[in-house]
């Protein structure tokens, strides 16, 4: 089956339809809403596979179908659909993972009374995300970008009666909005310069050669090329959406939402949209590479931000106790990896890691969801333990996900994609710092995942909730097993020995490189993974006689460092103390101005008015009033007569007006006055 670019709109249209059905379904129609949502996702998956087949036939072509959205006077706004391997691979991943997570949600949300609304929001999210992927116009992409933000807000705050969830939703929305402002500015600037926001338009699109040459050739303030400035503004949007430093603070809080939401939106798909965006506008980001005189290249900034985020996220994850927060910071760190890969010039490696990460991180989150559901919403690692014996399927799949994330060699997909990222960083001529940061994060990743898995599944149960947990139904373990199979099997489409994905994604055939091209690097990273796992096992694996209130061994060894990491390096406090306080201060200033300056001016005026009023009254009472008194007595008499018609009944007045109009109109019509 094939699906051409002209019919690409059907992929987002299906979930949108399901969302419409869900929104009209009353609370009792649980089967209808969930059925429509899942059926739409399966349909979208089939269509995406068709699109993938079409795209792989000509991997180097950016097939687009553009049309006029509306014309406003002489300005014509055109949008369109774009089909290339990047779109197709992402769409297949989103619909496949989405389908599994939808099915998992059937079990996870079974007892929630707003079940239909949940599926309506999920479908809305899927529609927006798929629309973002197939958009050929950056305008349409921005619209969908904001829609996924809205869906994310609605879903984080799904349990809005919990104050923490409502606050987290607000925080996520506002924080990403800061990045989106940059994105919007970038798009406006681009439109101002180029008069179009179509990516590919037969030579006239903004990502095509003519436009890129013009953009790179123009210099703006500070010696920046115009393409660098616009590229960095667009990257701001990616920073916000993908939880990059310094706007990463919203992502861990977003875990207040239901766990399937965390898996779908805040691990697999939406947060990867930032990476996708940078990959989409990659020609623009690359445009300044040939220029030697610019102060900084756009991609260097991307690499720097990515490296900082990768290390930061991994370090903070070591000291978190909430399962979902560990995974959230792990997501932040892995997104940093992807940005790092983009920055060092290999967007193919970034997308490879994105796709693999989507599968195993969704697996980990769903596994965490399975644990949380079984343990009666207990998600503190310190209060779990010993679940491995009673939840064998969850334990096994979670272990697969852990090994994929940690990068255990050869069998697991995460290993191959991480190697691709590290090799790209190794080959970067500018600096070796990203490579070092990446390697450090490898150790930390293996370490915190070992800590997490031993904490949940091994040892003895530390609370009653953990002791009573039992395995969930097949509707929840089924998706786990499928995702685990993907986490093992999918890595082989991108190994150095058979770089199928790399060849097809970029449209340039990559020769099967030798695994031994940089053998030292691969051996080093394997060694680091083993070190991390071993250290984790040594510290956490052999603990005996722990209970819920035992102190973490790391906290005993280095209490200061652990506390700082556990407090997430104080970013939230820092923002509250700077931006929050600045805001309060400006508000207080404005308040003071209002009260002191303007208010006194106004009251001065009022005094003057009062004084003249007093003068007037004296004049009035003695001179004018007597005459008026007599007149008003007459008026009052007339008024009393008329007041019978004026009962104060508004409807009556309006009715009288309407009927009087009818009478006049009839007179005119029948009287022949035309």
């Amino acid at each position: 089956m094939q699906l051409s670019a002209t019919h690409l709109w059907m992929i987002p249209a299906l979930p949108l339809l399901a969302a419409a059905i869900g929104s009209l379904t009353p609370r009792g129609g649980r089967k209808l809403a969930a059925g429509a949502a899942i059926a739409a996702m399966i349909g979208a998956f089939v269509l995406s596979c068709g699109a993938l087949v079409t795209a792989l036939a000509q991997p180097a072509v950016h097939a687009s179908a553009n049309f006029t959205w509306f014309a406003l006077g002489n300005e014509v706004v055109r949008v369109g659909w774009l089909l290339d391997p990047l779109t197709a691979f992402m769409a297949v991943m989103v619909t496949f993972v989405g389908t599994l997570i939808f099915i998992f949600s059937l079990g996870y949300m079974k007892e929630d009374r707003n079940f239909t609304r949940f599926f309506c929001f999920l479908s809305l999210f899927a529609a927006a995300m798929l629309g973002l992927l197939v958009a050929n116009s950056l305008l349409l992409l921005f619209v969908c970008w904001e829609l996924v933000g809205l869906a994310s807000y609605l879903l984080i705050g799904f349990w809005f009666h919990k104050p923490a969830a409502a606050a987290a939703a607000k925080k996520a929305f506002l924080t990403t909005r800061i990045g989106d402002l940059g994105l919007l500015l970038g798009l406006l600037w681009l439109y101002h310069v180029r008069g179009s926001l179509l990516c590919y338009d037969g030579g006239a699109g903004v990502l095509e050669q003519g436009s890129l040459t013009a953009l790179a050739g123009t210099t703006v303030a500070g010696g920046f090329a115009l393409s660098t400035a616009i590229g960095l503004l667009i990257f701001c949007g990616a920073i916000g959406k993908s939880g990059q430093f310094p706007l990463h603070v919203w992502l861990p809080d977003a875990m207040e939402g239901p766990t399937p939401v965390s898996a779908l939106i805040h691990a697999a798909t939406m947060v990867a949209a930032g990476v996708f965006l940078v990959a989409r506008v990659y020609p623009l980001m690359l445009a300044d590479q040939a220029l030697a005189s610019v102060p900084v290249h756009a991609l260097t900034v991307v690499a720097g931000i990515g490296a900082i985020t990768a290390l930061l996220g991994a370090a903070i994850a070591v000291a978190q106790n909430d399962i979902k927060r560990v995974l959230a910071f792990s997501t932040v760190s892995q997104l940093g990896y992807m940005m790092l890969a983009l920055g060092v010039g290999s967007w193919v490696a970034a997308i490879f890691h994105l796709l693999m990460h989507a599968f195993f991180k969704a697996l980990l989150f769903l596994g965490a969801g399975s644990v949380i559901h079984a343990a009666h919403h207990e998600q503190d690692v310190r209060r779990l333990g010993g679940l491995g014996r009673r939840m064998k399927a969850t334990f096994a799949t979670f272990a697969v996900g852990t090994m994929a994330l940690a990068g255990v060699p050869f069998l697991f997909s995460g290993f191959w994609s991480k190697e691709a990222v590290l090799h790209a960083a190794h080959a970067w001529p500018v600096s070796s710092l990203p490579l070092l940061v990446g390697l450090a994060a490898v150790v930390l990743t293996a370490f915190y995942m070992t800590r997490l898995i031993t904490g949940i599944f091994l040892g003895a149960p530390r609370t009653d909730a953990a002791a009573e947990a039992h395995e969930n139904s097949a509707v929840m373990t089924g998706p786990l097993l499928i995702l685990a199979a993907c986490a093992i099997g999918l890595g082989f489409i991108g190994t150095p020995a058979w770089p199928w994905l790399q060849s097809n994604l970029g449209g340039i055939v990559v020769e099967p490189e030798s695994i031994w091209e940089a053998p030292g690097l691969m051996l080093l990273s394997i060694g680091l993974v083993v070190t991390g796992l071993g250290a984790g096992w040594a510290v956490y694996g052999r603990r005996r006689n722990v209970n819920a209130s035992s102190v973490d061994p790391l906290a005993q060894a280095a209490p200061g460092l652990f506390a700082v990491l556990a407090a997430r390096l104080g970013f939230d406090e820092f923002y509250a103390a700077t931006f929050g306080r600045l805001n309060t201060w400006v508000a207080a200033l404005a308040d003071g101005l209002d009260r002191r300056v303007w208010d006194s001016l106004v009251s001065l005026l009022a005094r003057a008015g009062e004084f003249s009023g007093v003068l007037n009254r004296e004049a009035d009472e003695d001179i004018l009033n007597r005459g008026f008194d007599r007149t008003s007595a007459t008026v009052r008499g007339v008024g009393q007569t008329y007041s019978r018609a004026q009962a104060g009944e508004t409807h009556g007045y309006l009715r009288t007006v309407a009927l009087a109009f009818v009478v006049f109109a009839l007179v005119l019509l029948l009287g022949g006055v035309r």
Partner: protein
Amino acid sequence: MTFTFLILAVIILGSALAAALRPNLIHCALLLVVSWLGVAGFYLWAGAEFVAFAQVLVYVGALSMVVLFAVLLTRQSRAELRVDAPETRRAVWAVIAGVAVSGVIGAAVFATKWDPAPVTAPEVTVRGLGLELMGAHAAALLLLGVLLTAALLGAVVLAAPDRPEKEEKS
């Protein structure tokens, strides 16, 4: 008479009629928003894009929010959202008045001989509109600004709670 026009007419009138009949205030307000959207669609159909956008912005965007605010500010409980069914006598009179009005307008429409319609819509660009507003209609635009300011101030004065000392007097 195109198919689009008929669809739009059905949307506009259907949602307005439904709003006239629903007991739930929120439903009524939302149905009227649909009706306004239909009117915006009519403007688009007639070729007045700019007016359509203004309609969407002002009615569908802003007014609906103001209405919802008013609804939420003036209710105490869920039960109050169900407004009373109209009294029968008033409802009958209302329908009589409505039918009579549309009757005479309809009669007038059919009784008048209209010139044949121009084939294309008059060309109005946004630029042209801006020039007209700033040129020929500049005075009206200024007055409108004053009116909007006055309405804003008036709304604040009306909706603001009375000062406590005044309450003591009355």
